[in-house]
């Protein structure tokens, strides 16, 4: 049964690659990366031997804990890439729960990344073990730690699999992915602001607390190598056994629970904002875009990311050794405008397969321009006040409230430029946004380079086109900001004009490019 599951997993990996060169190349890179990570991680980890035993132990404890956390969170965020993760797919086969449990854990240990993490964890033995006892206990501890990682991830995915299959659960999770992104920026921010206390004290206090968590027990067992180590390993084994039992219980429940994904959700309120938007296609598209920014998880995520990244930039730039003067107010505001405006570089992506509805109604270049103008209007409705607030906050942080005026004007100008550039890039380099958003990929399989090209072209073209208005303001000539808004409007208009000219004939290809299967 175990080998059958392992073969199923291998077959799934291979089947996914069949006949798609880009995927095959991607997989080869992924294999190489996993190998590099495994070897590099093992070597780096074992280099800890050179540090003092205390520091080595504390680092080991933190690394083991991070691995367990990673295993718990990452499969949740990318749930759905692996059919062996979803018990409901296997529910109809005549298997006992125990067979399923053993088979599924074997399947989840199969693959380049799980094996790479096993190798890196084994580096812990090289780093921490002392003498024969240490190595022996260490090997057991590493295997148990690996089992802990597997079982933890399985318990969580199984317990939440019902919720993950429902629409609302997936919506929540998609937004949670931004939280992961934010957390990954936390160390960066802390380093930038200066650490509270010295790093070594922080490490030892973290080690002291985490030492009693299951991964901490594993790391401690390796370093101890004596009777205490054996006790650690026994406790750890108990925890793994308990989690495995919990998993089997959760699995049993998941197999007989009804699929909730087809139950209807609640009603939405009728929007009042529609009444204030223009009639016809312009207002229709704008109203739809505004609803999508709110209701579609990908819409919420992009806006949320833009705001969070702007905030991070603002606080980073306003640090003690940051720039001074008008630059520190207008700089963050313009960067925020760029971050927000860059969303316009794949305007049709969020419509995806539904874009046909617009395509059958767009019968001239003028219609396409109107469609794009509706999208720009919706974006401006959200971004203009937002950039105003960011400018005021940045100006206050910079120490002169009056700087908010040139900062806001310039930021609005940059937004206009970004929208104009984005309109052209949207019709030239459209790509599919994956339906199931995850933190690791922003495009459909095989369109990664396209997404990168789109963002790169967007950033460079917008920066270049915005330079004439941004540079003088950043250098302190605030009055130039007065010209920014008309300039931005002109660029946006010209961009829509050019996009209409180029894009109308390309409409079927745009439709095909944003409707790829993900």
């Amino acid at each position, binding site marked *: 049964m175990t080998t059958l599951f392992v073969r199923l997993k291998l077959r799934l990996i291979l089947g996914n690659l069949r006949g798609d060169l880009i995927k095959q190349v991607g997989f080869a890179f992924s294999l190489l990366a996993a190998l590099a990570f495994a070897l590099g991680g093992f070597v780096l980890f074992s280099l800890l031997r050179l540090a003092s035993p205390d520091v080595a132990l504390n680092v080991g404890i933190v690394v083991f804990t991070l691995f367990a956390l990673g295993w718990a969170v990452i499969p949740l965020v990318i749930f759905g890439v692996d059919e062996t993760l979803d018990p409901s797919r296997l529910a109809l086969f005549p298997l006992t729960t125990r067979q399923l449990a053993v088979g599924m854990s074997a399947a989840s240990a199969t693959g380049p990344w799980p094996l790479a993490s096993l190798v890196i964890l084994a580096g812990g033995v090289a780093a921490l073990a002392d003498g024969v006892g240490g190595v022996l206990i260490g090997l057991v501890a590493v295997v148990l730690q690996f089992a802990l990682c597997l079982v933890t991830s399985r318990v969580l995915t199984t317990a939440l699999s019902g919720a993950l299959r429902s*629409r609302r659960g997936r919506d929540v999770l998609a937004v949670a992915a931004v939280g992961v992104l934010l957390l990954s920026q936390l160390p960066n921010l802390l380093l930038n602001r200066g650490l509270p206390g010295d790093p070594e004290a922080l490490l030892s206090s973290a080690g002291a607390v985490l030492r009693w968590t299951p991964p901490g027990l594993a790391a401690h067992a390796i370093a101890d190598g004596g009777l205490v180590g054996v006790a650690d390993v026994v406790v750890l084994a108990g925890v793994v056994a308990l989690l495995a039992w919990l998993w089997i219980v959760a699995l049993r429940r998941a197999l007989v629970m009804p699929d909730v994904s087809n139950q209807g959700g609640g*009603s939405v309120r009728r929007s009042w904002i529609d009444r204030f938007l223009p009639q016809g296609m312009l207002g229709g598209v704008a109203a739809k875009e505004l609803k999508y920014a709110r209701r579609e998880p990908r819409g919420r995520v992009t806006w949320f990311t833009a705001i969070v990244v702007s905030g991070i930039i603002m606080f980073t730039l306003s640090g003690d050794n940051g720039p001074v003067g008008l630059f520190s107010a207008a700089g963050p505001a313009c960067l925020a405008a760029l971050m927000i405006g860059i969303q316009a570089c794949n305007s049709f992506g969020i419509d995806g397969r*539904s874009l046909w509805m617009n395509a059958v109604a767009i019968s001239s270049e003028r219609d396409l321009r109107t469609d794009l103008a509706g999208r720009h209007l919706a974006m401006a409705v959200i971004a203009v006040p937002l950039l105003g607030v960011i400018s005021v906050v940045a100006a206050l942080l910079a120490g002169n409230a009056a700087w908010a005026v040139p900062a806001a004007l310039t930021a609005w100008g940059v937004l206009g430029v970004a929208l104009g550039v984005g309109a052209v890039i949207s019709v030239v380099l459209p790509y599919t946004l994956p339906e199931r958003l995850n933190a690791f990929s922003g495009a459909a399989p095989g369109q990664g380079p396209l997404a990168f090209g789109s963002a790169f072209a967007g950033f460079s073209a917008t920066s270049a086109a915005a330079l004439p208005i941004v540079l003088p303001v950043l250098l302190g000539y605030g009055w130039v900001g007065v010209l920014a808004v008309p300039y931005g409007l002109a660029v946006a208009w010209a961009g829509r004009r050019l996009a209409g000219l180029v894009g109308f004939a390309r409409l079927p290809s745009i439709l095909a490019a944003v409707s790829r299967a993900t």
Partner: protein
Amino acid sequence: MVEAVRTQGLYKRFGQQVAVGGVDLIVPKGSFAGLVGPNGAGKTTTLSMITGLLLPDGGLIEINGHNVWADPVSVKAHIGVLPEGLRLFERLSGRELLLYSGRLRGIPLEETSRRADELLRVMDLVESQDKLVIDYSTGMRKKIGLASALLHNPGVLFLDEPFEGVDPVSANTLTDVLRRYTESGSTVIFSSHVMDLVERLCDWVSVMSRGHIVAQGPLAEVRGDQTLNEAFLDLVGARGSGDEGLSWLGSSGGPR
């Protein structure tokens, strides 16, 4: 005979595979036409090209005498489309979807909401009009899709597999609405592989197989004195061979 839709030598290739290899489709005005064919015959590709969603590699398409690709302004306002696969704006409610469709076509908001209310009532969707389309069942999606294709009162309606996965009650509603629509002189073209349904509804049939039209004309002419299903199986060359092999299947063997 006035033709609502006429294609000549319509051709489309995906890589090495010829999906549509020279289709001459004719649909008379005011007819309820069925486009039938086995899976992979090229029905969806043909309909996508006719409705301006997919660029043909060659051939001519005319709707009411206007070339679809050369003169889209005269064509797009007068056709309604329901493509395959229920691709709708999922995060709009049913009602919002209809309003959106109306606004895209430039119909005044007041008129749009009047038509939307009527369509929702006829389609029996009043209770779920404020639910998101993503939470709709298959039948509800087909109904709201048809409603938004009808909202601007097009002269020709293209439906790709409108009855696939639809429960009998919803199917009945769909056929009632479509019948009323064709009785007024408008044209419906729908693709399907449910022969009984086509036989019951259509007065004109085009049979596709492997990228070509193999038979076309009034229903009575195409089926002759057989049922449409028998005529169809003869035309696409797929009869018999159901009783060879599978000796283990059935109650005489054990489950293993």
